[in-house]
């Protein structure tokens, strides 16, 4: 009965009429609203045509992209030995599978984002096919196959896979490092020293290590800064303000030049780890400030309620305060991760061969003299694609979590 009245009610109340434009009307309203708008539009259009035609002409005629295609493997993985590259693929497949599982368990529906994510490997495979790479396209398509397989498995057995997916997510990072670094001098998964890591691989690894390891450290710092204990609070404030006050590059130089002095002379840490330590110390201070923002957003009643039901300080934080605070700052943390990923390019200045370092190395090669535009455009594009897709994802996440309107 109620349902019928509801439907009739729906039919009776018409939605407000939407504005409809013809194409010309739309142009008139949005491009030539006033004479000043008209001038702006014409100038803007002239600029777009000039710049667009110029760049397209350059990209398809005078640009020599062979510097990219010849060194593509170098850009992606640096000096990582060719016969071990399958390990990187395994890492990627594992990631695709885990993401597929998680998607199936938590997101469930097929959204636009999923199609974009699945489309990316297909697109790359097509590019590889057109350029004429050898067999790489099959490996790329396998990424999609595994992701879809993970998703299907999770949809088929949601209850059982839920726990497995979370376990895999937590185990993924140590497992990845194990696969990439290996162990033992020879044989299966032999050791690949960090000085052979390079290119995009190194950039991503430094960023991921930075965020993963700075996370607990940053949360502790944030809690310390909010703490009632005077001494702890002072120490945390000093650390946070000190790190936030100096540029990352000074910390990186400190890691490269000064860290050896601060350790016993028999301890030798390789350069990549030193850069990672600098990045972790740096990221932790910024993360602490972000988490503090989340902590401050928690109403006082939550603390009092936790006290009232007799939780001790540790339980209060882990069960009541932190879950809410961290959820509120997830988008900010994604933003910080993007910033960190961009900041990893600074390690090129201390001589590491990350994506930018490799680019400079390639440009120093006499065979590729004068190809700065091609190389830097390519590098910028790679950074852009990663950063933009992450920020796009975080905006979707923000909408989904409903924390944007804080």
């Amino acid at each position, binding site marked *: 009965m109620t349902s019928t009245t509801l439907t009739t009610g729906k039919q009776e109340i018409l939605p407000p009429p939407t504005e409809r434009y013809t194409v010309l009307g739309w142009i008139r309203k*949005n*491009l030539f*609203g006033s004479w000043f*708008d008209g001038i*702006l*539009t014409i100038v*803007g*259009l002239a*600029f*777009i045509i000039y710049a667009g035609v110029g760049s397209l002409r350059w990209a398809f005629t005078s640009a020599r992209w062979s510097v990219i295609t010849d060194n593509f493997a170098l850009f992606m993985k640096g000096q990582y030995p060719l016969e071990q590259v399958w390990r990187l693929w395994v890492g990627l497949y594992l990631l695709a599978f885990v993401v597929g599982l998680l998607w199936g368990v938590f997101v469930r529906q097929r959204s636009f984002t999923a199609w974009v994510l699945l489309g990316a490997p297909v697109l790359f495979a097509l590019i590889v096919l057109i350029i004429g790479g050898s067999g790489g396209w099959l490996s790329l398509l396998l990424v999609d196959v595994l992701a879809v397989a993970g998703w299907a498995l999770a949809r088929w057995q949601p209850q059982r896979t839920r726990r497995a997916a979370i376990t895999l997510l937590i185990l993924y990072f140590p497992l990845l490092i194990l696969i990439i670094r290996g162990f033992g001098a020879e044989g299966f998964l032999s050791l690949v020293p960090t000085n052979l890591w390079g290119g995009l691989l190194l950039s991503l690894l430094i960023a991921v290590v930075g965020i993963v390891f700075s996370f607990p450290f940053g949360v502790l710092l944030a809690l310390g800064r909010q703490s*009632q*204990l*005077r*001494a*702890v609070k002072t*120490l945390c404030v000093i650390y946070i*303000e*000190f790190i*936030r*006050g*100096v*540029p990352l*590059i*000074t910390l990186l*130089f*400190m890691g490269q*030049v*000064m860290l*050896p*002095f*601060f*350790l*016993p*002379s028999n301890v030798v840490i390789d350069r990549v780890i030193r850069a990672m330590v600098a990045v972790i110390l740096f990221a932790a201070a910024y993360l602490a400030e972000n988490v503090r923002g989340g902590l401050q957003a928690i109403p006082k009643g939550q603390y009092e309620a936790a006290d009232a039901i007799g939780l001790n300080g540790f339980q209060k934080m882990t069960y009541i305060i932190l879950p809410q605070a961290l959820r509120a700052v997830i988008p900010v943390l994604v933003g910080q991760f*993007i910033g960190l990923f*961009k*900041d990893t*390019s*600074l390690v*090129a*200045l201390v001589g590491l061969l990350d994506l*930018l370092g490799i680019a*400079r190395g390639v440009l120093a090669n006499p065979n590729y003299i004068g190809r*700065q*535009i091609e190389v*830097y*455009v390519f*590098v*910028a594009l790679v*950074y*852009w694609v990663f*950063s*933009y897709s992450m*920020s796009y994802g975080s905006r979707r996440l923000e909408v989904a979590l409903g924390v944007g309107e804080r």
Partner: protein
Amino acid sequence: MAQRTTEQHAVPFWRDERYLQLLGQLAVVLAVAALFYYLINNLIHGLAAQGIQLGFRFLRLTAGFDIGESLIEYSRSDTVLRALYVGFLNTLLVAFLGIIFATILGIVVGVARLSKNWLINKIAAVYVEFLRNIPLLVFLFFVYTVIFLKLPRTDNALSISFLKIYFSNRGIFIPWGIPGETFGSWLVILLVGLILAIVVGLILYRQGQRTGRMPLIGFWAPLTFVVVGLIGWIALPSAPLIKDVPVLQGRNFVGGRGFSPEFGAMLFSLAVYTSAFIAEIVRAGILAVSKGQREAATALGLSPFLTLRLVIFPQALRVIVPPLTSQYLNLTKNSSLAVAVGYPDVFAVANTILNQTGRAVEMIGITMIVYLTFSLLTSLFMNWYNARIRLVER
């Protein structure tokens, strides 16, 4: 809590929260102190093993290296300290100009981002989204190697001829003034003009307070200054500043003021890159002013310009200024990337000294202190500003 007060004597001290807090703090402080002791002990032993001594006496020694550009007189026989000072001034210069240009560009793009014109809106969006998602260092390398080093040679430099500005791969050259004989007296006149301008501003402010009609202080006070300066210029027997135009002599320009390609690349990339972030801040600030405010202002009969000046902007500024100062600080810290293109800022100079003398600890310490000072000053300003804003809010 209640339990503790009633049964105070029953609680042993190892379960008393006050003792526990004290002990916890003590433990943390001791742990940090022990860590520092360990590190510094290692440092002293390590340095002693290599025969290096800590200390700042080397700052008085001769630097022995050239610096490409300097705001003050400097030669390689000057002291290390002076070399650092040159670098410090260069940092200030690029950061100061960068902040000015980034602000102007950022406001323009931020307003364009809110434009009703679809095309302008989208161009601004692409500008912002492109710059915000690439690393500054990549942008800097691109700008330096692709734009500033690819400029034509000096003998066929791009020029804005009626302004006598030249762009070449040796740098950018603009006309400049050389202080003449009467420059000193003109400076005095300018000072008098400044004092007069402040007096005029104060009088007008008082009058505004009294009558309730605030006159255009921002117009009349600067006008006073400019008029006094102009009168001084005309009244003095010879012009205080002599125009010096860059002229091509041999392979390079002579005269005027030259800016190296490194400086140009630093300034350009810092200003453009930061402007994208400032644009987003400006946009968010203007959007943060609720729509009702604009409608109310229109209902009161304020013109669109007055609406912006009296209603939207003062409120938007409150949202804009805190993140804006943090962007300014970011720009200043990012100017340390100058080391990548060889612009001699304080970090690059310190790095040179480090390589020449091996004084790693001291040099990195000094650069950190310089940047920490910047950031401390910024946060002091922020606290002052926030306090002022709160007064306005009551």
